């Protein structure tokens, strides 16, 4: 038996629904249909009345979740695609994110964003939104890369974290990423994880790029370089300690993200390393992101737009030469 990343997301929601009466799921096509990606498949039968189809009204979906949370509920909002969360942006960044700070009333909502690029999905069904949301005070932003993390971090988001969590789940991992079983122990979401040990350079990344990074590290291993891959897991708060400890071991840093290149998680990682770990660095820290255009539709363009194992390997070789 094996469990996919998508199964893990469904199982975490089932467990959360079973453990806390305040949990409910609010989103388009989540009930009978089980969600555009089937992340809520069969949950309606198991939890009647708690999986609710909404109109196509992202602003109101988030607004309603905020209201329900203020009443002690723990809503999960499913965006059909991360890209459509921009329609609920105002409620997320100005309302959910400020509620506790302004009023002392916590806002425990989890907003699930099916994120990231898959071939042929085009500019509006491919975006990574973590950078945008991480910018705002008052939000926790998770970017799980593994089946185990998809499960344990989502459970933590829904049941334990009393703040709005932006849960960026990567669509590319949904069906093909598998684990033998659901995890029984969990590393708290706020900690980064060493996904591969190494000594010549640190490669910090998150979400689907962790897998490209691991492939690139395998390439470099055949060339005699041991790359340490740090999976950030949660990008806000960012686990600077784990990051700097790795940089202390390797002296070199490459930060990789699937987002657009201006600012963002990779810029934050590099700036923290420069600011707090300058003395640990043997070479200028580097970053690699997608290109500065919308995500293109045609596979030829799409493949060149985002970082890949090959482009990461090339960036690592550059870094190791510098």
């Amino acid at each position: 038996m094996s469990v996919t990343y998508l199964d893990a997301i469904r199982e975490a929601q089932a467990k959360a629904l079973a453990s806390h009466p305040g949990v409910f799921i609010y989103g388009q096509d989540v009930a009978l249909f089980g969600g555009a990606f089937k992340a809520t498949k069969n949950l309606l039968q198991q939890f009647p009345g708690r999986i609710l189809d909404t109109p196509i009204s992202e602003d109101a979906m988030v607004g309603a979740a905020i209201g329900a949370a203020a009443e002690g509920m723990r809503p999960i909002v499913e965006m059909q695609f991360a890209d459509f969360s921009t329609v609920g942006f105002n409620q997320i960044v100005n309302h959910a994110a400020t509620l506790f700070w302004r009023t002392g009333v916590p806002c425990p909502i989890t907003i699930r964003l099916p994120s990231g690029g898959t071939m042929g999905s085009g500019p509006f069904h491919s975006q990574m939104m973590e950078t945008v949301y991480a910018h705002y005070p008052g939000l926790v932003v998770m970017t799980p890369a593994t089946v185990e993390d998809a499960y344990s971090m989502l459970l933590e988001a829904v049941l334990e974290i009393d703040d709005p969590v932006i849960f960026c789940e990567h669509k590319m991992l949904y069906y093909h990423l598998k684990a033998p079983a659901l995890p029984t122990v969990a590393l708290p979401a706020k900690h980064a994880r060493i996904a591969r040990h190494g000594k010549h350079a640190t490669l910090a990344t998150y979400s689907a790029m962790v897998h490209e990074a691991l492939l690139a590290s395998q390439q470099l291993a055949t060339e005699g370089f041991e790359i340490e891959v740090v999976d950030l897991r949660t990008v806000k708060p960012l686990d600077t300690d784990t990051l700097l400890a790795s940089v202390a071991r390797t002296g070199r840093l490459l930060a990789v993200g699937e987002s657009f290149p201006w600012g963002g998680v990779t810029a934050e990682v590099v700036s923290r390393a420069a600011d707090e770990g300058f003395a640990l660095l043997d070479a200028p820290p580097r970053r690699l992101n997608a290109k500065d255009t919308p995500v293109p539709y045609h596979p030829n363009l799409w493949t060149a737009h985002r970082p890949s194992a090959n482009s990461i390997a090339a960036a690592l070789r550059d870094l190791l030469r510098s």
Partner: protein
Amino acid sequence: MAQTAFLESLPQSASQTKLPVESALDESWRDLYLKAFRFMQRARVIEDKLASLYRSGKITGGCYVGRGNEAVAVSAGIALNKGDVFAPLIRDQAGRLAYGESPADAFRTYLGSRLGPMRGRDGNVHRGRPAEGYLAMISHLGAMVSAATGMLLGRRLRGEPTGIAIVTLGEGATSTGAFHEGLNLAAVEKLPVVVVVSNNLYAYSTPNSRQFACESLVHRARGYGVRGWDVDGTDLNDCLKKITAAAQDARQTGLPQLVVATLLRLSGHGEHDDAFYVDATLKTLPVARDCLAVAEEFILQTNLADWGEILEWKEEAKREVESILAEVQREPVPDPFEERWCCLATPGLCEGIDGV
């Protein structure tokens, strides 16, 4: 549940085309009807082809067809003149053809041809030529209402004749803030924007009962202060008559219109979707009629053409589509090394490009 009440509110027996025979015999009407019908036929042929390309793995990403929506779509496209603004959406292949889009552009966009309007940058139904008044939809539903309004606003501010705009969307899209803001804006600005809603009873899997609570969406027209039109989306006569009349009214009064056509989506949301959730009872009601079959029947009944002609037109459309597709498949696709990776119009502002 609420859905049952909704089912009961739909007509339970076929209101077969009530067009008076005299108007069917009116020559200009007859020409318009047949012209519209042939666009519908061609759209169906194009989309059947797209679906088969999708099934054979030749299309990357999704594939979305307008099966069942052709009568509404074509009426919108046909009501527009050159220079008018058109903002079509997912299920408007017939309307795009009637508006004047080349049939090649559908294939070019799905296959990512560099010669297509989107040059492989955007795909499938996300296509248009805004320089010609033909907007290219973004996915975010409702967003096109204000953009089309803005095109007319720009023309008015420049002192030019505005022409009219037609924006199409599904009933699901009427639940967005963008739809509300856009239609209200058009009403406040007093611009001739015709918003054509195809209420095809499902938005992806979501039935009307989870989308809105009013008896009919057309009742909202009054709330916005615009004229409302209630249309049988399965009947080309009704669609043509009322949608062209709404467009005419917009032209004459300069004011927005809200058209609500009712029909059933006769496909999945996309070709990946088997639509298991569609209520079985619904499929037996007149609302589930295939507008193309209804139109064929009407043509035969009123002797507008005979069966042989209808079949010949279809065969002609198939031959045409095959040859267009063969050509498009030979067209160049994007090359990442030739791509400039710059998305700004102003020269000299893209970092790392143009010496910045």
